[in-house]
């Protein structure tokens, strides 16, 4: 069984996590404000992301959370997860 993470990831950890989960293949030097959509975070990957976030962080992202702004960059996504956790 997977241990649910209880602290929100910082943007750098989030980049590692996205790679580790196989959601994206980001370069090691992918910037915190890099464009995730251009890196392959399309609607299919977003669905996998929501499932993985639920598994790993115990957070349920809904349609209202999945805006372009929230998913634009590792920084924005980390902020979304932090906000959902608090």
């Amino acid at each position: 069984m997977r241990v649910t993470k209880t602290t929100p990831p910082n943007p750098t950890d989030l980049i590692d996590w996205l790679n580790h989960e196989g959601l994206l293949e980001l370069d090691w030097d992918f910037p915190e404000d890099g464009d995730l959509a251009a890196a392959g975070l399309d609607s299919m990957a977003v669905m996998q992301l929501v499932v993985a976030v639920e598994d790993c962080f115990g957070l349920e992202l809904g349609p209202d959370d999945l805006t372009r702004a929230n998913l634009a960059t590792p920084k924005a996504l980390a902020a979304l997860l932090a906000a959902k956790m608090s």
Partner: protein
Amino acid sequence: MKPDSGRFDVAVIGGGSAGLAAAISAARNGARTLLVERHGCLGGMGTASLVHTFCGLYLLREEPGAVIANPGFCEEIATLMTQATGRGPLRMGRLDVLPQHPVEFVGIADGLIASEPLIELRLHTVVTGVSRDADGWEIRLAGCAGAHVVRARSLVDASGDAVVADFLGGAFSIAPPLSLQRPAYVFGVHGPVALDEELRLRTAGLLVEGVRSGALHAAALGLSFRNSGRPCEFFGTLDLDGGDAAADYDPLDPACLGRLETHGRAIAASAVRWLCGHDAHWRGSYISHWPVRAGIRESRRWLGGYTLTGDDLASGRRFEDEIALATWPMEFRETAKGPKLRYPQDNRPAGIPLRCLKPAGIGRLFVAGRCISADHEAQASIRVMGTCFATGEAAGRAAAKAASSP
């Protein structure tokens, strides 16, 4: 079996993107050509399976602007498609693609065939066997009116499934069921006025919610939507991993394919119903058409004089006898979780040698399309329609030349 007076220089099995290109190219090289297709229209994956993007037409490059990789038939069809749809190449991520409309593709193929008097087209016809003798090929055909035999000097296997390898007991390879690229089930949707990025993401969220609530099957997570280029018309694409039966996936088994397709329709229908009921943008949407068949990405691969490898593609290897360039990254769809792309070093295109189109030791036989001699990794690049046009064109030319030599 009725005798058939048909004697051809070249016979092409399969009227998909590769077979269409092969027949046109053979005819333009002076060969009296027979083109055999099991459906009622040409275009294969691009029409019967509603695959609505021509991939592999353009070079991989950082700079903006799409550059055709293989001049000739690829360029011709790209021009005709752009004229028909009014849409030019699009950059998606790092890749240039040409959006294509299956309805327009059918019309373009009809027009191309009509302008080639040397082509005889047999739709609604399947090939049930072939055999080789000193003079060439005997090809057994079947349709609703019964069975026929025709003869041709040269044969092109553009079946996608390397059926000739099966008929002849020839050398082919097929990946194990869990490694085979998963099929795509593409369907038409009459839907929201504008599917912009926000709605696309929201739709993803709605589908996850549907799965989470138990209303939708988990396979709905493999669904994505794209504009067709026509107002209010969309394509939904569902990658099917075979679910619990993934280990039994067999693209050559009609029963297996039929089960997957039935499953695909049920998932698609429930997903569109769910979206209609849960979002104002989707209200009133409906599925407007189903594909004739699922989009098969990989089945048998011929083993020819050379087998193109993933390493050849990754390093952009070039060959003395290359007949076309492969430019699409290796696109792995071994699960329904979206593509995994492997790009070549420095965006280099790789050459496809003519030997990949020639099964070893069998004269006047050529292969085109997704079943040319390539390993599982290389096939993940060369299977795309843009590359199939190019290998088809080369196979047709080579078959015409072989037919006219003693």
